[in-house]
């Protein structure tokens, strides 16, 4: 296992020692192995990775006549640019570099990758500390420019429906869309007529390639929905409440009437988890490998599927739980309750992290968008509200629906789908980061049965709807993210790649106890225990080691170091310190008074003296 960076080929032979040292940390074996190392390790492993990523990058989005793609081929970011010399250089062939100099870095793009929060004023720091801070900032600058340079250029754009001069996009029917799009995209719209086994719940795998659905009357099936290849189809002979893929499409969790069962992609029952009984809703946290179950008995259970251990079983104390969703940003679970509140849970805390009063009636459905910024809730009071989750939890938008929405789902790009009776409405926002505006639905679709499950397919402009009459796969232009990360979730991955990914994902598994409302809070110092430890240390030592040492006059010669003069000198310093203190406090007081005086300054009145 070699983790050390490999020395590049272009390391100049060291002539001036100091210069060479400045450029790179020198290694003690370098003098002998410079040449051999260069030969042994042909290049940085990163290159390989990126190549692979790009290889898997394929145009995959459904395209519609409204916006045609000019170029499908994403340009490769030129890696060589980083290494290019400043002055124009003639190559062997004699051609001149048409773009001399370092590649320009778009500032706003680089800004996106800056993570140091400079808004806070720092307390005065010593020069040494300041140096460290400067180093940190320089590092950030460097990494952010590097990230900006390696950004994908000319990425896939999301498709969208745009009405011609005031045409309502909601009037466009699925049949129209299917007619207009290419055959490959048209094939993504289909209906599965499964009237026999009741209302269906469905779930797409994280890559968006596989679809699992379970009918109320026990029908469970998974298929590769793009090729329509059935992977398994079984009847569990028990009511199926919910169905969910685990981290990969090979594992499938099914909430059955009594217990939670886990099947593999052949339909073979692997586990029956009896500790999770009467489960109504399932949710999977992919980075934590946690399967979250909400049960009729009011318990929220976190099951670590990588080790098969129940991490936490929390009693929500709010009766039956049947409204649940996850926040993809911080892996917090949102539960909707019958008293109109939505509570936010993490496995580390026995109580909810937050409780939000959303509706006058009970909450029927909750959905959180992919950035974790917005939460949509619908309640028994027929309202559909959008809340801001960034600390304020205030409603941004609300709308009364004639019948209220029973199911909600956010797409990757922030489209909101709501199932009301046998109708699905989809609202769209202005862009990715904006909440859906509720004025006009973007699309509507009527189904043959009542909606029972909604799920947007990742990386495909498809909305899967499970209803009493089966499954419908709707085309929703602009729903999904057109650019996928091939290393993270690759729809076109092979089995080998999947296995590799699985191992890596397991290695990078995040511990369950790190789930908290603000994940950035983990990068902060635990001030409470810091103070506590400091206090304990002082107690243990009997003095404060960080406190300033009292002034000790230096001994002087020629009789000037008499006791009286020593005391005098000491007193001088003490007095000076005291004066400083007094000056400071006086300044502070003046400031305080100014602050106080400001509001009343406007109109002084004789009655002000009675104000408290």
């Amino acid at each position: 296992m070699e983790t050390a960076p490999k020395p590049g080929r272009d390391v100049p032979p060291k002539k001036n020692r100091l210069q060479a040292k400045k450029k790179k940390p020198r290694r003690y074996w370098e003098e002998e192995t410079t040449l051999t190392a260069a030969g042994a390790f042909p290049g940085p492993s990163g290159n390989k990775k990126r190549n692979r990523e790009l290889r898997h990058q394929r145009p995959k989005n459904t395209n519609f006549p409204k916006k045609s793609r000019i170029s499908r081929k994403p340009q490769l970011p030129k890696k060589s640019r980083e290494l290019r010399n400043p002055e124009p250089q003639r190559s062997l062939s004699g051609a001149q570099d048409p773009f001399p100099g370092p590649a320009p870095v778009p500032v706003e793009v680089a800004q996106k990758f800056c993570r140091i929060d400079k808004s806070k004023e720092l307390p005065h720091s010593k020069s040494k500390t300041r140096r460290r801070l400067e180093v940190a900032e320089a590092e950030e600058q460097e990494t952010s420019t590097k990230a900006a340079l390696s950004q994908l250029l000319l990425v896939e754009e999301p498709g969208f429906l745009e009405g011609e001069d005031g045409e309502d996009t909601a009037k466009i029917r699925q049949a129209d869309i299917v007619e207009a799009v290419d055959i490959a995209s048209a094939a993504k719209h289909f209906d599965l007529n499964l009237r026999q086994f009741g209302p269906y719940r469905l779930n797409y795998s994280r890559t968006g390639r596989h679809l699992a659905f379970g009918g109320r009357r026990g029908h469970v099936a998974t298929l590769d929905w793009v090729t329509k290849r059935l992977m398994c189809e079984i009847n569990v002979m028990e009511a199926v409440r919910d169905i969910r893929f685990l981290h990969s499409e090979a594992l499938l969790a099914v909430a059955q009437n009594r217990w939670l069962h886990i099947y593999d992609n052949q339909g073979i029952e692997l586990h029956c988890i009896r500790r999770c009984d009467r489960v109504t809703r399932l949710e999977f946290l992919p980075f934590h490998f946690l399967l979250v179950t909400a049960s009729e008995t009011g318990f929220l259970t976190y099951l670590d599927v990588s080790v098969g251990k129940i991490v936490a079983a929390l009693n929500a104390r709010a009766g039956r739980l049947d409204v649940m969703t996850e926040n993809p940003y911080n892996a917090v679970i949102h539960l909707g309750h019958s008293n109109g509140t939505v509570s936010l849970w993490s496995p580390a805390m026995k109580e909810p992290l937050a409780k939000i009063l959303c509706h006058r009636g009970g909450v029927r459905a909750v959905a959180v968008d992919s950035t974790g910024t917005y939460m949509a809730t619908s309640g028994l009071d027929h309202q559909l509200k959008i809340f801001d989750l960034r600390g304020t939890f205030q409603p941004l938008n609300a709308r009364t629906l004639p019948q209220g929405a029973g199911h909600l789902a956010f797409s990757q790009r922030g489209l909101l789908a709501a199932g009301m009776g046998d109708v699905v409405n989809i609202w769209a926002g202005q862009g990715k980061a904006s909440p859906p505006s509720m004025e006009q639905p973007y699309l509507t679709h009527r189904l043959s049965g009542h909606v029972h499950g909604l799920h947007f397919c990742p990386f495909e402009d498809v909305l899967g709807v499970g209803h009493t009459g089966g499954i419908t796969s709707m085309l929703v232009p602009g729903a999904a993210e057109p650019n996928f990360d091939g290393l993270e979730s690759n729809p076109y991955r092979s089995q080998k790649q999947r296995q590799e990914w699985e191992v890596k994902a397991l290695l990078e598994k995040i511990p369950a106890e790190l789930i908290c409302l603000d994940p950035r809070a983990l990068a902060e110092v635990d001030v409470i225990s810091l103070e506590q430890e400091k206090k304990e240390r002082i107690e243990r030592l009997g003095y404060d080691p960080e406190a300033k040492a009292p002034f000790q006059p230096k001994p002087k010669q020629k009789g000037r170091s008499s006791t009286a003069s020593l005391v005098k000198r000491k007193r001088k310093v003490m007095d000076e310190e005291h004066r400083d203190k007094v000056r400071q406090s006086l300044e502070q007081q003046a400031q305080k008074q100014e602050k106080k005086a400001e509001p009343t300054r406007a109109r002084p009145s004789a009655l002000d003296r009675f104000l408290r």
Partner: protein
Amino acid sequence: MSAARAAESLLALSQQEELEDLPKDYPLSPSEDEGDIDEERKHQKLLEAISSLDGKNRCKLAERSEASLKVSEFNVTSEGSGEKLVLSDLLRPVKTSSSLAAVKKQLNRVKSKKTVELPLNKEEVEQARTPLEQEIFNLLHKNKQPVTDPLLTPVEKASLKAMSLEEAKMRRAELQRARALQSYYEARARREKKIKSKKYHKVLKKGKAKRALKEFEKLQKDNPTAALEELEKIEKARMMERMSLKHQNSGKWAKSKAIMAKYDLEARQAMQEQLARNKELTQKLQVASESEEEEGGVEEEGELLVPESVNEIQMDADGPNPWMLRNHSISTKEAEIKYPVQLPEPVAHETSGSEGEERPGAEEEILLNEFEERRSLRKKSGPNQDTEPVSRQEPKDSSSQEVLSELRVLSQKLNKENQSGKQKLSSARTVRAVQRKDPTEEEEEPLLLQRPERAQTVNELEELGKEGCFQNKDVPRSVLEGQKLERSTNNEPGAPKEKKKKEQMIDLQNLLTTKSPSVKSLAVPTTIEELEDEEERDQKQMIKEAFAGDDVIRDFLKEKREAVEASKPKDVDLTLPGWGEWGGVGLKPSAKKRRRFLIKTPEGPPRKDKNLPNVIINEKRNIHAAAHQVRVLPYPFTHHQQFERTIQTPIGSTWNTQRAFQKLTTPKVVTKPGHIIKPIKAEDVGYRSSSRSDLSVVQRNPKQLSKRHKKQLKKNSVD
């Protein structure tokens, strides 16, 4: 000595009890609560007796107001007789001494003998000499007045003859009892007068008013003339009120309350109550029009009927639960009884009488409501969505004309049915309608008085309810109602005062207020039920939701308050009760001591959800996550914020390019397995300049070389 006296008084008490048992046996015991009062008195007596045991209160002069056998020598007064009490009277022996008995007997015997004749004849005495005397005698004879002896008149004699001894005794007992009863009542009245509780008196007054009202109603049935007199009395009271400034918030009390009203909800309430009372008292009593008149002036009645329906809506809006607004169209009679007019208008009054009658016939009401609903619908479709006064002025509008005729027919039907029973007393009914307002106030009152600290909550709830009504506006049917609602809220007298309170809750208001766009969905979900059916169901569900929702908000606020309380740091009380002073049950350590030993914990930082009324954010520390956090500040940093800034940039490959990741994670020292590391020689350290190639440890960055090292390097280069 004192004990003996106490025992005596106890004895007296027991005798008293016997006496008091007496009235109970009689059938004419005045009221059922008499027994309670007796018990109270007994209890009082007992207490007195017990308290006198210690001998302190021995000389307490009790005011003698009731007939009792307990006559103490210490509280004998001469108040009743009007004479001066002389000591000699008291000193006189009660019985004559026995030595004189023999003499007395002799005297008696002499008297009974009648041997001694009076020197003058009776006749002579009676003889009238002067004409004046004759006249007088004539008169006396005519009246059968005894002339000589001031004895009994013949009538008295007859009555005496008629009354036997038993009867006399009974009569005496009766009189005695009556006197005793009177004294009890007096004592009771005095006691009650002494009660300082304002609430008690208020309740009492209201109870009296109710009783009076009931009696008045009864009187109406039995004796209409007497009722009319009563009415006149009411009219007189009104006149008095109009002349005086009694309930116009101008008195001393009212002024002081006005100052308080800004901050105190109760004071405000009281002021409003007073104003309402003024209004009520100065209300002109109107005689409801008879059915015959109605038939005569149909047009007029129609005009009047329009405002009736309008006012009903207003009533509901003013009522404590504005959620009822939506369902008022199918509201049952309770709704109207519960939420009648709060600010009675003269016009509303006339109809309120008939409204009261409507109670028995709920069907008619439902019919009426139905019509009203239809009317409002039609109005909405028509060009004018104006409010009541405008619509009143435009009865020529064809649609409204139609509605009016409908309403007219209906109202006639109603009135015919209802007025058959009691026609004359319609005027009295209006009075009842006015006074019926009181119960609602009473209903509200306990809510307010219950928990003063919860007053704010109630206010919040009201406001929530209000904005809930505004919310209803988006339901197409209730556009008109919404307008009226706004109007009615403007009418509210307390509106400007409550503004301040409202500002506090503006967030929560915003939360549940929704400025939702009008619903124009292309595909409305289909349902199997028919449209009207569903509407009805919808309505019912709405009501349910409304009530459920009300509770939801209150519960949430309560929960939040509890959470806030729980998270507050608690003060440490180190007082030792009984240390340095007396201790025991019911004894509290002194305030000074408590103050001295109370360690106040510093107030923590403000809660994150301080300004978010609809959110409870858990402030508890996540220990599990804290275990993963940094808890030590590395060397050059003195403040945690400085250090935090250096660790904010992620170094993982997930967030960085491969190059950046490698650079960020370059170890300071790298050892290669299998390579021999030579020991440090003297020249390596700098004693002798040598090739630095075999320096086994190299600093990563020349900048980070220590000062000493740099110096050495300099030296080397100099060398």
